[in-house]
């Protein structure tokens, strides 16, 4: 797997002709290599515009975007795009090509050998949870969730160091969306690429991102922080309102018990170490217990009390 890329937005501004307000206003953002960065905000926040500037589907007026230190405007357009995976909400699968041909598009553009291409197609289909036999099917024969899996496989085909995702799960039903969110997180851990992910759903942003950039109307960056920092310390009323209530509980949902310094010894009902702190708190209240025992199988790691949760906040 190729390494991930570092992306830098350096005072980037975009104005659409005939509109007073900027779409993206003086945006500066550093996304370290391998990060999962979510751009989130209300409509009119310029998040999709910011995303599409990276693969130059939308040109910007001033500033600079750098991938691994290179100004994207110095790279040939097609070369730039072939090196970036791109996933959109409507997926945009080519209806006249089979699933396999869709996934093989960029490898073929890059003139990979037939064998390498077909091996890669099968490898990718399995990676995104499809079967090798699906390669022969046409997009119209797939469900919405399957289509988006193919879209993801197609974007990953040439092993790009950067993945751009524009509300990829916006059109899916809640169950399929949740499943794909979980799998994408796993995939990100496994393949370690830089991901820029656009959504208008703050919960999705908090669940998916390890960095979140909140953009407000007029394309102004309101806050750029980790989910935990965002929930702990929203910079202003706009961000606080956009994030919504239950901030303390949602912060607890970001941590699992095995990340905490546990109290020694066994006390109360047993739970698994990968239980989120939020769920642990919920269990304590539900069971009217004083403490929970954190155990990995038979091995007791320690115990957890309600007071430990407030320590985290």
């Amino acid at each position, binding site marked *: 797997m190729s390494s991930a890329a570092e992306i830098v937005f350096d005072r980037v501004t975009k104005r659409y002709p005939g509109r007073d307000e900027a779409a993206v206003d003086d945006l500066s953002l550093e996304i370290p290599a391998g990060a999962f960065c979510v751009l989130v905000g209300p409509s009119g926040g310029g998040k999709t515009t910011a995303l599409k500037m990276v693969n130059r589907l939308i040109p910007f007026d001033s500033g600079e975007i750098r991938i691994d230190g290179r100004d994207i405007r110095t790279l040939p357009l097609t070369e730039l795009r072939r090196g970036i995976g791109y996933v959109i909400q409507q997926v945009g699968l*080519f209806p*006249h090509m089979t699933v396999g041909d869709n996934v093989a598009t960029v490898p073929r553009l890059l003139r990979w050998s037939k064998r390498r291409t077909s091996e890669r197609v099968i490898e990718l289909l399995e990676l995104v949870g499809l079967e090798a036999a699906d390669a022969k099917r046409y997009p119209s024969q797939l469900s919405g969730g399957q289509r988006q899996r193919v879209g993801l496989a197609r974007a990953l085909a040439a092993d790009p160091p950067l993945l751009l995702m524009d509300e990829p799960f916006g059109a899916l039903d809640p169950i399929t969306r949740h499943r794909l969110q979980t799998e994408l997180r796993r995939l990100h851990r496994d393949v370690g690429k830089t991901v820029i992910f656009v959504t208008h759903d703050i919960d999705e942003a908090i669940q998916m991102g390890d960095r979140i950039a909140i953009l407000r109307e007029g394309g102004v960056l309101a806050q750029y922080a980790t989910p935990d920092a965002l929930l702990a310390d929203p910079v202003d009323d706009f961000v606080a309102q956009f994030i919504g209530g239950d901030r303390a509980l949602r912060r607890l949902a970001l941590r699992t018990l095995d990340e905490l310094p546990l109290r020694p010894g066994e006390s109360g009902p047993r739970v698994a170490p990968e239980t989120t702190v939020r769920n642990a708190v919920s269990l304590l209240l539900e069971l009217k217990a004083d403490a929970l025992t954190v155990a990995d199988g038979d091995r007791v790691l320690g115990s957890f009390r309600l007071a430990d949760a407030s320590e985290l906040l």
Partner: protein
Amino acid sequence: MDGNGPVIPNFGQGDACVTGDHTFCWGWVRDHWSDTLGPALWQHVELTAVAVGIGFAIAFPLALLAHRFRKLEQPLGAFSALLYTIPSIALFQLLVPFTGITWTTVEIALVAYTLVILFPNVVAGLRSAPPDVVEAAEGMGLTRLQVLLRIELPLALPAIVAGLRIAVVSTISIGTIAAFLLPKGLGYPIFVALGNPIPFKTEIYAAGGLAVGLALLCDAGLVVLRWALAPWTRLARA
């Protein structure tokens, strides 16, 4: 117009079926296949193939231009809609001062009609690629030409074939009117038969049946072609 020729059955000399002008005389069809019906059919095929071929050769690049430069479509579309309202029987005659009573005159008129059918169909086909599909292609680094050749043209195939179907069938139909100008095509035996004091039934039915059969056959052929060239359109939505 020339009313005498081998196609006029001699009521005094034919067999009983012909002299009695019965509903349909197979014998007459057999006897006059080589001198009347066969050549007329062949002329009709040639007439149609040339008209649709030239029409497509003109319509296709024009449609590519209109696809690239969208401002061109409106004037071209309006012009062709008006052209299509000119009745074929009039258009053939109106071209006579320019190109005479010739095969060329007939072909010019037929090419004009096919153009009117094919141009908007090809343009609509090229536009039928969904915007998200084109965006995905561009985002993946396909060049403009690659988007046209690999995405837009294949997706336009069904619409292009649909246009060809209408063009071919219409041309075969309008081609019979060419008999008002020239003694050619499947219209001519009908034209002649109608010119008899008592219209000769067999000749009308035989030539008419050949014209309709040719049209339906070509139509079916193009359906098969589309089926073969655009396999993704055969599938029902999952």
